[in-house]
C-alpha cells in the first residue's frame, strides 16, 4: 500500500519535470536578467548601497519621471473616459455589424504603435499636416505656439490611438455585465438616468475602471518606440533616458541606468499587480 502511494508521489514529482523547459526559459530570460539588474543597481564598489539611486535623483532624471508619469496619467485618464463612452455606445447599439466591426477595429489598433503610428500622426497633425492646414484655413493656427505634435501634448494624442482601443476591449465585458433589470429597478424607484449612473452603474464598474486605468498607465509608461520616432531625444521621458544610456549616447556609469530601470520597473510592477488584484476581485464578485 505504502509502495503505491510513494510511487504516485514520485510520478507527481516527475510530472513537474515536464514543465522544466518552460521554467528554464522563464528563469534564464526573465528572472535572472532582472535580478542581475537589481543587484547591479544596488552595488557600488562591490558593496551593497543605495547610492546609485541617490545619484539618479538629478533634476534631469526627476523631470523625466515627472513627464512620464504625467503623460501616462493623462493618456490613461482620457483613455478610460472616452474608451468607456465609446464602449457603452458599442454595447448598446442594436446594429450587430457596427458592434462587431468596431470591436474588430479595436482589436487591431490596440496592438499598433511605434514608428508607423508616430509617422501617421506627423502626416495628420505635423507642422504641415493635413488637419493643421485645414485648421489654418478656418483661422486656427496650431503652430508654432498652440500645439506641437513633436511634444508631450502631441504624444498624448498619439498614445490615445492605442490606449482608447485597449480600454474599449477591457471594459466591454464589464459593461455587458450591467443587467438591464438594475437600470429598470432604479428607474422604477424614481431614479433619474444620471442618478442611475452615479449611484448604481459607476460603483459596480469602479474596480474595472480603476483596473483599466492602471493597465493603461503601465502601457503608456513603458512605451518607447512611438515617443522616440515622434520626438527623438527632445522629450525627456524615462524610457528615452534609459535607452540613451543603453546605447551609450550619454557618457555615464552603467549603474545609473540600472537604478533608473529599477525605479521604472517598480512603477510598472505596482500598476500590473494592482490590475491583477482588481481583476481577481471583480472575478470573485461576478461569481
Amino acid at each position, binding site marked *: 500500500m505504502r509502495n503505491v502511494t510513494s510511487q504516485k508521489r514520485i510520478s507527481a514529482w516527475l*510530472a513537474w519535470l*515536464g*514543465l522544466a523547459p*518552460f*521554467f528554464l*526559459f*522563464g528563469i534564464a*530570460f*526573465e528572472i535572472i*536578467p*532582472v535580478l*542581475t*539588474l537589481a543587484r547591479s543597481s544596488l552595488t557600488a564598489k562591490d558593496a551593497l548601497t543605495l547610492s546609485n539611486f541617490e545619484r539618479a535623483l538629478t533634476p534631469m532624471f526627476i523631470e523625466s519621471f515627472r513627464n512620464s508619469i504625467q503623460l501616462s496619467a493623462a493618456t490613461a485618464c482620457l483613455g478610460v473616459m*472616452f474608451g468607456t463612452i*465609446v464602449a457603452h*455606445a458599442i454595447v*448598446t*447599439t442594436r446594429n450587430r455589424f457596427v458592434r462587431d466591426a*468596431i470591436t*474588430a*477595429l479595436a*482589436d*487591431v489598433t*490596440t*496592438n499598433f*504603435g*511605434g*514608428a*508607423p*503610428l508616430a*509617422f*501617421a*500622426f*506627423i*502626416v*495628420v497633425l505635423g507642422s*504641415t499636416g*493635413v*488637419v493643421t*492646414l485645414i485648421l489654418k484655413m478656418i483661422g486656427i493656427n496650431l503652430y508654432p505656439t498652440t500645439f506641437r505634435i513633436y511634444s508631450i501634448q502631441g504624444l498624448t494624442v498619439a498614445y490615445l*490611438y*492605442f490606449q*482608447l482601443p*485597449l480600454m474599449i*476591449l*477591457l471594459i466591454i465585458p464589464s459593461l455587458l455585465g450591467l443587467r438591464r433589470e438594475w437600470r429598470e429597478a432604479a428607474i422604477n424607484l424614481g431614479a433619474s438616468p444620471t442618478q442611475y449612473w452615479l449611484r448604481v452603474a459607476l460603483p459596480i464598474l469602479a474596480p474595472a475602471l480603476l483596473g483599466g486605468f492602471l*493597465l493603461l498607465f*503601465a*502601457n503608456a509608461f*513603458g512605451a*518607447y*518606440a512611438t515617443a522616440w*520616432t515622434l520626438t527623438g531625444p527632445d522629450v525627456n521621458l524615462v524610457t528615452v533616458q534609459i*535607452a540613451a544610456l*543603453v546605447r551609450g549616447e550619454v557618457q555615464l556609469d552603467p549603474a545609473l541606468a540600472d537604478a533608473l530601470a529599477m525605479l521604472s*520597473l517598480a512603477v*510598472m*510592477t505596482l*500598476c*500590473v499587480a494592482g490590475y491583477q488584484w482588481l481583476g481577481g476581485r471583480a472575478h470573485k464578485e461576478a461569481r
Partner: protein
Amino acid sequence: MNDRGIWRGIVIALFLTFMIVPFLATVLFSISVRWDRTIFPEGLTLEWWDKVTSRSAFETTLTNSFIVSFATMLALAILVTPTAYWAHIRVPRGKPFIEFLTIIPFGIPGVVLALALIRFYSQVPLPLINTPNILVAACMVLALPFMYRPVANALDAIDIHVLTEAAQSLGAGLWQTMLRVIVPNIMPGIISGCLLVFSTVFAEFTLANLLVGTRFKTFPIYLVEFTRFDGRQASALAVISFVIAWLTSLLIIWIAGRGGRPAESLGAR
C-alpha cells in the same frame, strides 16, 4: 430614445474618424507628389513607392523582420503548447507559476528588458549578445502572454481529460495523444496565438534597436531611419507596416469567429 441614437452615432463616428484618418492620410501622403502646402495633394505619383522598394535595404530589412517573427512564433508555439497541455492534464498546481511568468512581460518596459538582458548575457560566454539570437529570445519574452493566453483558453474550452483518456485507452502514447488529438482540437487557439506573436514581433522596434541595432536591421528600424530624412518614402514603409498588422489581425478575428469559441486575443499589450 431617438436622442440616444443620435448621441451614439456621433460617438461612434468620432471614434472611427480618429482611428481611420491617420491611416488614410498616410496612404494618400505616400502617393502624393507634394502635400504640405495645400489641403489636397498636388498630384499623385508612385515615385516614392518605386524608390523605397527598389533599395536593397528594403528587401534585407523585410526579410530580417520575417525571420525574427517566424523564429519567435515557432519557438513560442513549440515551447508553450506542450507546457500548457502538460500543466492542464498533469500538473495543475504548476499553472500559477506559469501564469506568473506570462504576466511578468506586461510589467517590464521594453527598454528595461533590453538592458537586463545585456547586463546578464554580456557576462555569459554564450553566442547571444549582439546577435539575432538574443533578439529572438527577447521577443519571445515580450510575446509570451500572446501565445499562452489563446492556447490556455482553447485548452479550457475542450474536455482534455476525456480526450486524453480516450486516446490512451485506444493505445496512443503521450506524444501521439498530444499531436494527433489535442493539437488539432486547439488549433484555432494556437493559430491565433501565432498570428498575434507574429504581428507583435514584426512591429517591434525597441528591442531590435537596443539589442542588435545596425548589425541586424529590422523593418521598423529601417522605417525610423527614413522618417528622419525622407518623409514621403517613410510613409510608404508605414503603410506596409499598417497593412501587415491589419491583415494578421483580421485573420485572427476571422479564425476566432469561425472556430465558434473566441480565442481571447485581447488582454493587454
